[in-house]
């Protein structure tokens, strides 16, 4: 027995002696290195934030709750919610249209999505804001027939209506694709069963297909909501008093550009984080019964 090398583990051949529960974690040097690098980077960035006087943190703090900034934030939120609501409703209709068995409708909805996904929202905003050039008066009447009333376009298209129209048309196209993907993800057997129970096409869509599609729709729709919120900052180019425009008005007067951009960033961050939390709750709600 003494011929066994002394470095051999004690009782390596005895199976009852081993219990992996007693194992100690392995040391992983690369992880420690990555951790150290991360720590240095964070410290460096924090140092930069704190020591660079040009951030003018006190100025940022002073404007954070400035009434004009809060009004801008309110406008941003209102615009986001209006556009998202309109975009979601129209998006569902458009998605249903694209999946319609009636070819011309499906085709028209497909063309809409292609066109409005292709045009940058900024271009659309400027276009709608200048609609008055193309169409001086907005008529209401029988197509190709008599006009009952008409309004001067420039009094109808304010920066708010231009923003709502432009962003909604854009948003609708994206929501339609998200909803369509969700609908297609629902097993065909569910629709079969709904029809077999005697549900009408609408009942089976509203009661059975759409609720199950929500599980697939919510995550990308949440991202869409967030990117829309940030996308509303585009409306500052048509002089609409959103969050970005409000801080721009202030820094054009005071030249405190950086601290005021920080104010805007802080609010965007706060809103987006709360939205993400809401999204997670929605996902849990619609995920129940699945897996």
């Amino acid at each position, binding site marked *: 027995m003494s011929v066994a090398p002394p470095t051999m583990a004690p009782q390596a051949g005895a199976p009852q002696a081993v219990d992996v529960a007693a194992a100690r974690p392995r040391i992983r040097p690369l992880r420690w290195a990555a951790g150290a690098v991360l720590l240095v980077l964070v410290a460096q960035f924090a140092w930069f934030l704190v020591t660079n006087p040009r951030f003018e943190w006190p100025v940022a703090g002073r404007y954070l709750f400035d009434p004009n900034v809060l009004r801008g934030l309110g406008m941003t939120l209102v615009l986001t919610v209006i556009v998202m609501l309109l975009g979601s409703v129209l998006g569902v209709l458009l998605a249903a249209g694209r999946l319609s068995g009636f070819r011309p409708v499906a085709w028209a909805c497909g063309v809409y999505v292609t066109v409005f996904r292709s045009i940058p929202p900024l271009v659309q905003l400027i276009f709608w804001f200048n609609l008055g050039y193309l169409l001086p008066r907005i008529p209401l009447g029988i197509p190709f027939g008599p006009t009952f009333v008409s309004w001067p376009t420039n009094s109808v298209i304010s920066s708010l209506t231009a923003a709502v129209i432009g962003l909604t048309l854009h948003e609708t196209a994206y929501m339609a694709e998200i909803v369509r993907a969700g609908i297609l993800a629902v097993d065909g057997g*569910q629709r079969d*069963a709904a029809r*077999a*129970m*005697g*549900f009408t096409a609408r*009942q089976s869509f509203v009661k*059975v297909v759409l609720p199950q599609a929500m599980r697939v729709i919510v995550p990308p729709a949440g991202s869409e909501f967030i990117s829309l919120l940030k996308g509303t900052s585009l409306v500052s180019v048509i002089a609409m008093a959103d969050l970005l425009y409000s801080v721009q008005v202030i820094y054009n007067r005071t030249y405190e550009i950086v601290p005021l951009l920080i104010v805007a960033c802080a609010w965007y961050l706060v809103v987006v984080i709360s939205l993400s939390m809401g999204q997670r709750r929605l996902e849990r709600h619609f995920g129940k*019964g699945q897996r």
Partner: protein
Amino acid sequence: MSDTPVLRVRDVRKRFGDHVALDGVSLDVHEGEVVTVIGPSGSGKSTLARCVHQLESIDGGAMYLDGELLGYEFHRGHLRPLPDRRVAAQRGRMGMVFQQFNLFAHWSVLRNVIEAQVLVHGRRPEEARREALRLLERVGLADKADAHPRMLSGGQQQRVAIARALATNPRIMLFDEPTSALDPELVDEVLSVVLDLARGGMTMIIVTHEMSFAREVADRCVFMEKGQIVETGTPEEIFDNPASPRLRAFLSRYSGRPAQLSGEHLLEEEITP
């Protein structure tokens, strides 16, 4: 009881592209009658069930439920398709049980059985709930009322699906291979529920691969191949004295198998030529 069959299928044709799925199928099912449909895969058995339930449109022929033309109406001397609402109402008078169960995944078991009663047949919710619980009791799943379908075994899901289809008092029940998606040991619990329905006098069409069951439960048995009904008769005629060579060839592939309520032979059957 009148002479009008509950379901009358007349020369029904259906094709999917170039493939002829139903090639002139005619079949009458009378009150309280149980008809089982057997035949090789792709013979059109399932298509027949789906066409009767109007989940697929038919290309020709006609179908009647209690003498009422299914899916079409006469308008100024011409036939035209019924509006969706009327078709839905006709579907609501039949019950369908699918191979893949297709329970509504976002609803509890109880709500699965309640919803069509309220939505389609306008029952009061509390009445629908009582009826649903009674039916779940009947299929032995009253204790699973609040569970979600995913939490149930395949056999349990299929029994819920049967309760759901029964909830609207259908004139006829259609079973589309109700045990083909089940693990072998779960087949019997579903078949015994179906057998129980048959003894209770329910009018049924059962498409199945379970030969011994098809024989035991049937008043009349139908053999289909290549979209046609090749032979129809009592279980004894079909299984003991098959007239056509095609039926004999089909049955011989099942011969020598133990005659019991079990699906184990099915798995082998798919492989054996």
